[in-house]
Structures are given as structure tokens and as C-alpha cells.
């Protein structure tokens, strides 16, 4: 069976039902390992124990951007191939991506207050991530308020593709402009500038958060397919009542 065969909603539901319990267990175990490493990681020589916030903040930031990239690929599937499962994937990813972006903003503020002396500054990195969060809210509003789901999906897909330009702005904002936010320290030329005693728990937490995202996304896609079946059945029921 080819991978494209799973684009059939019924086959996808069977696959999701089979995968979700395993993914949930893997997520819990990876979080247990990652949190153990994060809580026992040494203090940073400059930031002290507040470096523990990084184990939440950095994976949340990565997944906030990952969610939008996933939605962008799904938006192409909606607009170019008009595949219903692409729309399902985009719609299911939006609230999850928004939640991770919000978590990134809140933990960043809580980290910024003791380190920078302020919860918020209107610098390029912070502002571009806030714009990402507002874009997520815009996409959610389009999905939730459209009377005809297909029209809402196309409008959301267009906004998603337009908003994708913000992802490289977020990534390179610390290089292009003077910002209070530190430059890239994990993925950069010449290797990471973070000590392995802190970097390893960070990677473990990043894997745990990614597994959580995948699990939630798969579950939300399953729910969305069921919601569309409910809608289709209600329409059939209404047609039956009207013709009776």
C-alpha cells in the first residue's frame, strides 16, 4: 500500500486509531526522561536557574513555527489539489500551533523579566512571534466563522500561505536587526554554543514536545473527520425530512 492511500479518510482513521495509543505512551515516556534531565540540569553561569525556562520556551517556539509550516504545506494541498484531508490537517494544526506560540510568548516574558528587567519589548523577534500568534487567531477565526466550510478552508489556506513569509522573519530577525533577544545558539554555523549538560535535556524536551504535537494533531485530525461525517449525515437527515 502506497503512502498516498492513507489520504483516504477512512483508511486514515484506522491508521490514527492504531497509532495514537503508541504515540501517547511514547510522549509520556519522553517527557518523563526530558523533564528529569531538565530539572537536574546545572544552572547557567549567567542566568542561574532561570535557564530551566528554556526547556519549555525553545521547544514551544520551534513548534509554533513548525505548526505554521505544516499548515502551509496543507494549504498547498487544499488550494492546488483540493484534497479534503489537506484541509483537515491544516484546520487541526491551527489551535495546536496557536497554543504552542502562546506558550512561547508567556514563557519568554516570564524569562525576560528576571533576565532583561522587562516582560516585553517591541523588538523584531518578540514582535514577529506575536504577529505569528495573531495570524493563528486569524486563521482560526476564518475556520470557525465561515458558514460554508469549503470557502473558509480556501480563505484560511490563502492567509496561511501569505503568513508563511513571517517564518523566515522570525528565524533571522535576531541576525537582521538589533534585538534584545539572543542570537541563534542551538542551530548555527560552528555548532551549538550551549554546554552539552544543558543541550541534551533541551533536545530530549524538544523531542517530547514534538511527539506531543504529532499526537495532538493526529487526534485533532481524527476529530475533524468525525465532525465532517456528522455534518454530512445531518445534511442527509435534513434532506430526508424536507422531501418527506
Amino acid at each position, binding site marked *: 500500500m502506497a503512502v498516498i492511500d492513507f489520504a*483516504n479518510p*477512512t*483508511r486514515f482513521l484506522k491508521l490514527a486509531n492504531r497509532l495514537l495509543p503508541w504515540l501517547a505512551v511514547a510522549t509520556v515516556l519522553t517527557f518523563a526522561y526530558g523533564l528529569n534531565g531538565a*530539572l*537536574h540540569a546545572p*544552572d547557567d553561569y549567567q542566568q*542561574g*536557574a*532561570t535557564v*530551566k*525556562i528554556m526547556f*519549555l*520556551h525553545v521547544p*514551544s517556539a520551534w513548534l509554533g513555527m513548525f505548526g505554521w509550516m505544516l499548515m502551509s504545506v496543507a494549504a498547498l494541498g487544499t488550494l492546488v489539489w483540493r484534497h479534503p484531508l489537506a484541509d483537515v490537517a491544516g484546520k487541526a494544526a491551527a*489551535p*495546536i500551533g496557536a*497554543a*504552542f506560540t*502562546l*506558550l512561547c510568548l*508567556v*514563557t519568554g516574558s*516570564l*524569562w525576560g*523579566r*528576571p533576565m532583561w528587567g522587562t516582560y516585553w519589548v517591541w523588538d523584531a523577534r518578540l514582535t514577529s512571534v506575536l504577529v505569528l500568534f495573531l495570524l493563528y487567531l486569524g486563521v482560526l477565526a476564518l475556520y470557525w466563522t465561515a458558514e460554508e466550510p469549503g470557502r473558509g478552508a480556501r480563505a484560511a489556506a490563502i492567509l496561511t500561505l501569505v503568513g508563511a513569509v513571517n517564518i523566515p522573519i522570525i528565524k533571522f530577525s535576531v541576525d537582521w536587526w538589533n534585538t534584545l533577544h539572543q542570537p541563534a545558539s542551538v542551530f548555527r554555523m560552528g555548532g551549538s554554543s550551549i554546554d552539552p549538560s544543558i543541550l541534551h535535556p533541551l533536545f530530549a524536551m524538544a523531542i517530547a514536545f514534538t511527539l*506531543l504535537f504529532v499526537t*495532538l494533531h493526529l*487526534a*485533532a485530525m*481524527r*476529530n475533524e473527520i*468525525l*465532525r465532517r*461525517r*456528522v455534518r*454530512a*449525515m*445531518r445534511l*442527509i*437527515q435534513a434532506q*430526508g425530512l424536507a422531501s418527506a
Partner: protein
Amino acid sequence: MNLGPHADFIIASYAVAIFVVAALAAWVTLDYITQRRILGDLEERGVTRRSRGKGHP
């Protein structure tokens, strides 16, 4: 474990993260239960999808 002078900020960050993750997990779980219940109700009333009625998966 000594969280130092900024313990409040660290604890608040982890509390917010737990709340957000719990809210997401509750949302997908409750939504699944709701959709399954509605589908069950519709099927009990004899409503079937067209594709199923025609013998397709």
C-alpha cells in the same frame, strides 16, 4: 533543588505549560467523545452516509 531568587518565574512557567498541555489534551479528548456520541445518535436514528449506503468504505 534550589531554584534561586527567581523561583517564582520558573514555577509560573512550568505551571502555564502544564495548563496549556492539559487544556489541549482535554480539548481533543472531549471533542472525540462528543463527535462519537453524535455519530452514534445519528446512526441509531437510521441516518447513514451516502458513501456507506452505496457500499463504499
